[in-house]
């Protein structure tokens, strides 16, 4: 099995007629994903390489039964597109758009939380989700993933998500699902959401988690792991030697209760029983050992 998406997932691509949408949407279809529709207001009735285009998500859902959406829309239009997908009953929305203002993110996140609790948003500003051999929504290269499990991956960073997939595939360790949650201020899906799903998924036997400096999501994930996870977790946190980032005035430090350093995150994860690696390669090697023990 896998989490969030599988071979039955039917995807509508919002922005399919744009350059990015066409490139990634068709690439996802070539991977084997059921890309059943595109949406671009005013272009209903046309098609992109055989994929029918509709004016609205509601029209696309009515005609094709799409249950997931891939939002490839520039920052100005993305908030509206996300809420439109949720209003049309889409259960899983992936938004890769980079550069959406934080105020917009806070607004659509809370709009979904209140009015459309049945919709899960992944992103924005994330590489997407891939369940190898079944479904790929986003910009991850399918070639670096390996089907068959037993490892689930959740990552906050784009290229490090690829690096994690690569390290495991190189060592012959497959993945159930790899989720890139993105590093924006208000991610629709966070580490804990993914860890909980992986814990429930019978085919996922171990989880690799890739974090980075800033915020307190890794510390919160560590608390969740200590309290709720029975499956082994291997983690890497990027940025031990990163340049000191912008400090968000006093208010930011007061809320997070820590300064979000990689060191603090790694310590919290280690205390929660997580195997903490000092670089992505070591994380891959540690996971190979963990997987050997499973067998």
């Amino acid at each position, binding site marked *: 099995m896998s989490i969030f998406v599988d071979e039955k997932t039917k995807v509508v691509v919002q922005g399919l007629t744009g350059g990015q949408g066409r490139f990634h949407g068709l690439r996802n279809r070539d991977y084997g994903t059921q890309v059943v529709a595109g949406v671009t207001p005013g272009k209903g009735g046309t098609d992109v390489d055989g994929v029918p285009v509709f004016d609205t998500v509601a029209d696309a859902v009515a005609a094709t039964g799409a249950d997931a959406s891939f939002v490839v829309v520039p920052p100005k239009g993305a908030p509206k597109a996300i809420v439109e997908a949720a209003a049309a009953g889409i259960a899983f929305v992936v938004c890769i758009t980079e550069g959406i203002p934080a*105020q917009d993110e806070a607004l659509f996140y809370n709009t979904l939380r209140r009015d459309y609790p049945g919709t899960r948003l992944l992103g924005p500003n994330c590489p997407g989700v891939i369940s190898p051999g079944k479904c790929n929504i986003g910009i991850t290269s399918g070639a670096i993933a390996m089907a068959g499990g037993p490892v689930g991956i959740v990552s906050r960073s784009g*290229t490090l998500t690829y690096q994690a997939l690569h390290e495991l595939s190189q060592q012959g360790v497959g993945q159930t699902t790899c989720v890139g949650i993105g590093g924006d201020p208000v991610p629709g899906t966070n580490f804990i959401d993914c860890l909980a799903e992986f814990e429930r998924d019978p085919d996922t036997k171990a989880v690799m988690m890739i974090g980075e400096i800033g915020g307190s999501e890794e510390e919160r994930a560590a608390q969740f792991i200590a309290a709720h996870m029975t499956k082994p977790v291997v983690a890497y946190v990027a*940025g031990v030697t990163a340049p000191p980032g912008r400090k968000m005035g006093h208010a930011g430090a*007061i809320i997070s209760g820590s300064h979000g350093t990689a060191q603090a995150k790694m310590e919290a994860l280690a205390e929660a029983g997580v195997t903490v690696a000092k670089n992505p390669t070591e994380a891959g090697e540690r996971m190979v050992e963990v997987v050997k023990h499973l067998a």
Partner: protein
Amino acid sequence: MDLYEYQGKQYFARFGIPTSPGAVADTVEEAVARAEAIGYPVVVKAQVKVGGRGKAGGIKLADNADEVRAHAGAILGLDIKGHVVRRLWIERSSNIAHEYYASFTLDRPAKLHLCMVSARGGVDIEEVAETEPEAIARLHVDPVDGLSATAASAIVAEAGLHAEARQQAAELLVNLYRCYTEGDCDLAEINPLILTTDGRVHALDAKVTLDDNAAFRHPDWEEYAGTDTYDEREQLARERGLNYIGLSGSVGIIANGAGLAMSTLDVVNQAGGSAANFLDIGGGANADVMAAALEVINTDQAVRSILVNVFGGITRCDEVARGIVEALERVDLRSPIVLRLDGTNAEAGREILTEHESDRLIVEKTMLGAAARAVALAGGKT
């Protein structure tokens, strides 16, 4: 983008948040002229984006032109924690009865806005948060609902602001929330927010961080660009549109994606070296971007070797390799370059580089191998 105090106050003013009358001055003579126009006594304030200005001698009271001249002369050019003062803000001095604190920012874990108000302003508020957390009233604001006048009044009362300040402070809070949301701030903070002896509430300081992602709907933000100072390397990187942060080591770093770039810094450190910079070239690793990146790193005299770490997802490694070859024809590099290419079309990329390989251009198969090689070429730890 962080704003200077004077920019923050001007930004506040657009949303009806009261501040002291004041003006900007870049020279001693300008400072005197502004002070004459405003009326004494005035406060001469250093404009730097760092805390602790008062303790460093960057904020002085002046009762007449001679005092303004003396203070402005002393403060302009002053080095405050590595920030040299180039600009002053001259404002009318306030008679302070009480000092408070107010701010809005995003509470990331809660995914809601957070309003904080305290009657214990004017001091190190982080210390107050640690030693007396109950002295700060907190209110989560759902962006769907916004901040009502009733809620603003309630938190002002809860924070224990003096009775005569409450109504004005609540009104100010509603305007500060508008500034924070409509004005696309990551942070809008007033410390201290004051009650004057004649019963007026206004912002005596302004700490505003704008959300760069929202610049597309604020064309007026243009005016804030160019008011910052960067070192030579960072200035060139900005002109080339690169995400670059200068550091003090000897291994120049080029990577695609912020996470991979940070991870590259980590492995260079683990190999016993230190990075000269952070540079994320993002997804578009073509010849132009690569040439610009190499050009910026080449201006750094401390660099002894360059490490290029690219993981091709959408970025194709053969394009990256062609970009590097083309860039090397345009830029005369002082340092040897170590490359690691992985992911989409990595083999094709490595093949393109084969005929260019030398002791000045080295291809390594793994990230750790490349880091070790680059550190060795840089002469180990610096």
